[in-house]
C-alpha cells in the first residue's frame, strides 16, 4: 500500500521565526493520524500548507503520488484535501448557505444569470443534513450562530466536497460533547472508506481515543511517532515538551478552602437564557461552573462581567453593584472570554497594547502614560507568564493559541483584578501551557483573588475548583464541594 500523502523535507519560516524544519510525514489510507505538540510547534503550519492555505519555503508534497501544489484552500478542497481550521472560518455577514458555497455561486445561476437563493439553500440543507446539523437553517446569517454552530458550518463546507484527506485543526474545543461525537463519526466513516484524517488536538485523552497513530512535533520538527499500541501518557508528554513535566498538573490539595470575604455576588440574575441564578465567590476561592455547552454558563460569565442583557438581578463586588464592563473593570473584575480571538484580544494590536490596555491606570504617572513605564509593566507580565515572543511590538495575530491566552491573562493580572471570570481558560492550549495556567490559577487563589472558571472540561473543574455549580437550562442545578465531586454524579445533573 502506498501512502495517500507524503511530505518530504518541508521548511517554513515567518520572518525570523522558523516554523518547520525538514519535516517528513506519511499519511496512509484508512488512517486517523494525530498531530500533537505544544502551541507554536508547527502543527497548524504543516497542515495549512498541506491544505493550500500557504506555501512551504522548501520541500515536497505528494498526494496520491503526484506533486501537490494547491493554489488555495478552495483549490485543495476541490482536489481532495479539506481543512477545518482552528479559528473561525466563516464570514459573519453572509448566510450559512452563502458560506457553504462561497466562490461557487455560479453553480446556482439561472438562465437569466441570477443566483437562486432557494437552490443554494436547498443544497445547503443537504450538506448540513450530512453532518446531522439539522438545527442550523441555511438562510440564517452566520453572525447569528454561536461558536459551535459556526464550526459545524465549516465541517459541512468541507464534508460536502467528500475530501480524501480531512484535516481537523483543534476544532473539538469549540464543540460540545454531542458535536464532538458527531465529528468523530464523520472521521470514522472517512476511515472506513479508505480515506484519511489528520487530527490536531491538545486533549491527550481525546487524541488517544480517536487516532490510530500519533506524530509529535516540537519546535517545527517531527520528534517521534506513536502507534495506538504504544500510547503512553508520560512518553507522549515528555516528547512534546522535551522534558519531564515538573510539579502538579491540577491543584495538589483535596479539601475546599476560601476566606470569609465575598468578592463577587450575583443575586437572581434573569434574562438572556438565565433563570434566577444567584452565587457568591469568596476571596481565595475557585468556583467552577459546569454544564453542557448550551446550559447558560457562558452567558452567566458575561452577565457576571456586566455585559449580558438581563431583565433582572444584580451583580456586585466588594459591596458595589455594577452593570457594565467599564464599571466592572474599574472595580477590579476581569473577564477572559471563551471567544479569545474576537472578544479578549485585539488581533491587529501588539502584545504591548493588548497587555497595557487593562492596566493603564497602573502605568500612568501623574495621569501620563510614559513609554518606559509601559514597557516595564508589559515586560513584567511577559516574564511572569513566560510569553514566547520575539518582541512586544509583535501583533498577537502572529502568536500561537496558548501564548495568546497568556497575553489575555497578562492583561487582567497586570490590572490587579481581584475577581477573575475565566470562560474556558485553557481552550486550545497545549498541555505544557495548561499546566502553567493551572499553576497560575492556584497562585491567584493563594493571593486571595476570587476565581470563577467556566469550563466544558470536567477534569479541569474537578481538578481545580473548591466548589462546582452545575447548570442546566439557564439555572443552577446542584452544588458540589471539592473532594465530593464525582464525574458520574455531576453528569447526572448536567443532562
Amino acid at each position: 500500500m502506498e501512502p495517500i500523502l507524503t511530505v518530504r523535507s518541508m521548511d517554513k519560516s515567518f520572518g525570523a521565526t522558523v516554523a518547520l524544519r525538514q519535516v517528513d510525514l506519511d499519511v496512509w489510507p484508512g488512517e486517523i493520524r494525530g498531530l500533537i505538540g505544544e502551541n507554536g510547534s508547527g502543527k497548524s503550519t504543516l497542515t495549512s500548507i498541506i491544505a493550500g492555505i500557504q506555501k512551504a519555503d522548501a520541500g515536497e508534497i505528494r498526494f496520491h503520488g503526484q506533486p501537490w501544489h494547491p493554489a488555495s484552500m478552495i483549490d485543495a478542497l476541490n482536489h481532495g484535501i479539506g481543512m477545518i481550521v482552528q479559528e473561525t472560518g466563516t464570514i459573519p455577514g453572509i448566510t450559512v448557505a452563502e458560506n457553504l458555497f462561497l466562490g461557487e455561486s455560479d453553480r446556482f445561476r439561472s438562465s437569466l444569470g441570477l443566483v437562486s437563493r432557494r437552490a443554494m439553500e436547498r443544497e445547503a440543507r443537504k450538506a448540513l443534513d450530512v453532518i446531522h446539523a439539522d438545527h442550523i437553517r441555511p438562510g440564517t446569517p452566520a453572525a447569528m450562530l454561536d461558536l459551535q454552530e459556526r464550526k459545524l458550518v465549516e465541517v459541512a463546507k468541507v464534508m460536502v466536497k467528500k475530501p480524501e484527506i480531512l484535516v481537523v485543526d483543534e476544532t473539538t474545543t469549540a464543540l460540545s460533547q454531542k458535536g464532538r461525537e458527531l465529528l468523530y463519526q464523520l472521521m470514522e466513516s472517512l476511515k472506513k472508506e479508505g480515506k484519511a484524517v489528520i487530527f490536531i488536538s491538545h486533549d491527550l485523552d481525546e487524541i488517544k481515543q480517536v487516532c490510530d497513530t500519533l506524530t509529535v512535533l516540537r519546535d517545527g520538527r517531527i520528534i517521534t511517532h506513536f502507534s495506538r499500541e504504544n500510547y503512553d501518557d508520560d512518553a507522549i508528554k515528555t516528547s512534546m515538551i522535551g522534558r519531564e513535566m515538573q510539579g502538579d498538573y491540577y491543584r495538589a490539595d483535596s479539601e475546599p478552602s476560601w476566606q470569609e470575604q465575598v468578592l463577587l455576588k450575583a443575586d437572581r440574575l434573569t434574562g438572556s437564557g438565565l433563570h434566577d441564578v444567584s452565587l457568591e465567590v469568596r476571596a481565595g476561592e475557585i468556583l467552577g461552573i459546569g454544564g453542557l455547552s448550551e446550559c447558560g454558563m457562558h452567558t452567566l460569565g458575561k452577565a457576571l462581567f456586566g455585559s449580558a442583557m438581563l431583565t433582572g438581578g444584580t451583580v456586585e463586588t466588594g459591596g458595589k453593584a455594577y452593570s457594565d464592563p467599564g464599571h466592572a473593570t474599574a472595580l477590579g473584575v476581569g473577564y477572559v472570554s471563551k471567544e479569545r480571538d474576537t472578544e479578549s484580544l485585539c488581533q491587529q494590536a501588539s502584545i504591548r497594547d493588548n497587555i497595557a490596555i487593562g492596566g493603564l491606570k497602573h502605568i500612568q504617572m501623574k495621569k501620563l502614560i510614559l513609554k518606559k513605564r509601559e514597557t516595564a509593566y508589559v515586560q513584567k507580565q511577559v516574564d511572569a507568564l513566560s510569553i514566547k515572543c520575539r518582541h512586544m511590538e509583535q501583533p498577537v495575530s502572529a502568536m500561537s493559541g496558548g501564548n495568546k491566552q497568556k497575553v489575555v491573562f497578562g492583561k487582567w493580572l497586570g490590572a490587579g483584578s481581584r475577581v477573575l471570570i475565566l470562560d474556558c481558560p485553557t481552550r486550545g492550549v497545549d498541555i505544557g501551557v495548561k499546566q502553567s495556567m493551572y499553576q497560575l490559577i492556584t497562585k491567584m487563589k493563594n493571593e486571595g483573588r476570587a476565581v470563577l472558571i467556566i469550563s466544558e472540561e470536567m477534569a479541569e473543574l474537578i481538578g481545580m475548583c473548591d466548589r462546582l455549580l452545575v447548570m442546566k437550562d439557564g439555572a443552577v442545578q446542584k452544588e458540589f464541594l471539592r473532594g465530593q465531586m464525582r464525574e458520574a454524579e455531576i453528569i447526572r445533573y448536567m443532562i
Partner: protein
Amino acid sequence: MGKQTWKERIPAFASVLGLLVLIAAYYIVGAVRDANVAYGLKAIVNQSVVVALVATGAVFIYTLGSFDISLGAATGVSALLGAMAYNATGSLVIMFLVCVGVAVVLGFINSSLASVFNLPIFVTTVAMMSVLSAFMLILIGWNGAGDTVKVKARDVRPLDNIPFKVFILVSYIALCWFIFTLLPTGREAKFIGGSPVCARLSGINEKKLGIIASLISAVGIGLGAFLTIIYAPTLTKDTASSIGMDVIIAIVFGGMPVSGGPRSRILSAVVGAFSMGFMTQIMSMLNLGSGYGQMIKAAIFLLVVFIALGSQRGKLLTR
C-alpha cells in the same frame, strides 16, 4: 526578549520617508526649472495647513474605525459664522472663538446624537452634512452680499503669514499628540478601532470615546475655519467643501489605515497633507497637465499605501 528590527520598523515610517523624498524632489525640480521655491513653499503651507489641521483632529475619529463625512460642511459653517461674528463685532478674538465654538457645538451634537441613538458617528455625520450644507446657504442668504460673506482682507492680513499658521498647526498637533500618545484616550480609541467587542470587554467606554474624539476633531475644524477666513476672506457656499475628501486622502497618504485601529498615528494626517501639497507643486513646476498630474499622484498614492501596509502582509503565522 528582542527588539523590533529596522526592517520591521520601516513600514511605519514609509510615509515620512515619502514626504522627505517629495521635499528633496521639490528642491531638485525647483533648481532644474529655476523656479521660486520660497514662493512655492508658501503656497504649499497655505494649501496644506487647513487640511492638516482638520485631518489631525479627524485622526481621532478615524482611529475609532468611523469617519466623519461632514468635516467640510462643518468647517464651512464655522467659517461663515466666524466671519459674520467678525463683521458684527470687528474683533478677531471673537471671530476665533466663534469658529472654534461653533465647531465644538457641532461636534458635540454629532457625537451626542450618535450616543443617544446608539448609532455609528458616521451615520449622524451624513445627516449633519446635509443640514450644514443647507444651513450655509441660509446663512449666506441672510447675511451675505450676493453669494458671499466677506471679511475685509486688510483686517485679517496681519495674521495671513506663514509663522502664525505654522504656530497654530504645530500647537494643535502637539495637543493632539499629547492626548493621543500620553493619555489613555489614544490607546482606548485604537482598541475600539481594532476590535470594538474586545474594547468593550476590556472596560472601554465606546460612547465616551466617541464624544471625546468628536470634540477634539471639532477644535481642528474650528482652527481650520479660522485660517480659511484669514487666507480667503470671501466665503461662499463652496468654502471648504473639498476638505472631507482631502482629509481622507491625507490620512491614507500619511500611512494610516482608513479603517483605523492600532496602526493609527497622529502624524499621518500632517505628513499626508503636506505630501499632497508638495506633490501638487512639483506637478505644477513640471507643467504637467492636471490629467498626467492626477495619474502620477494616484500611482504614488498606491505605492505609499502598499509600502505602509507591507508590515502586515505575509508575516502572519497561521495561529
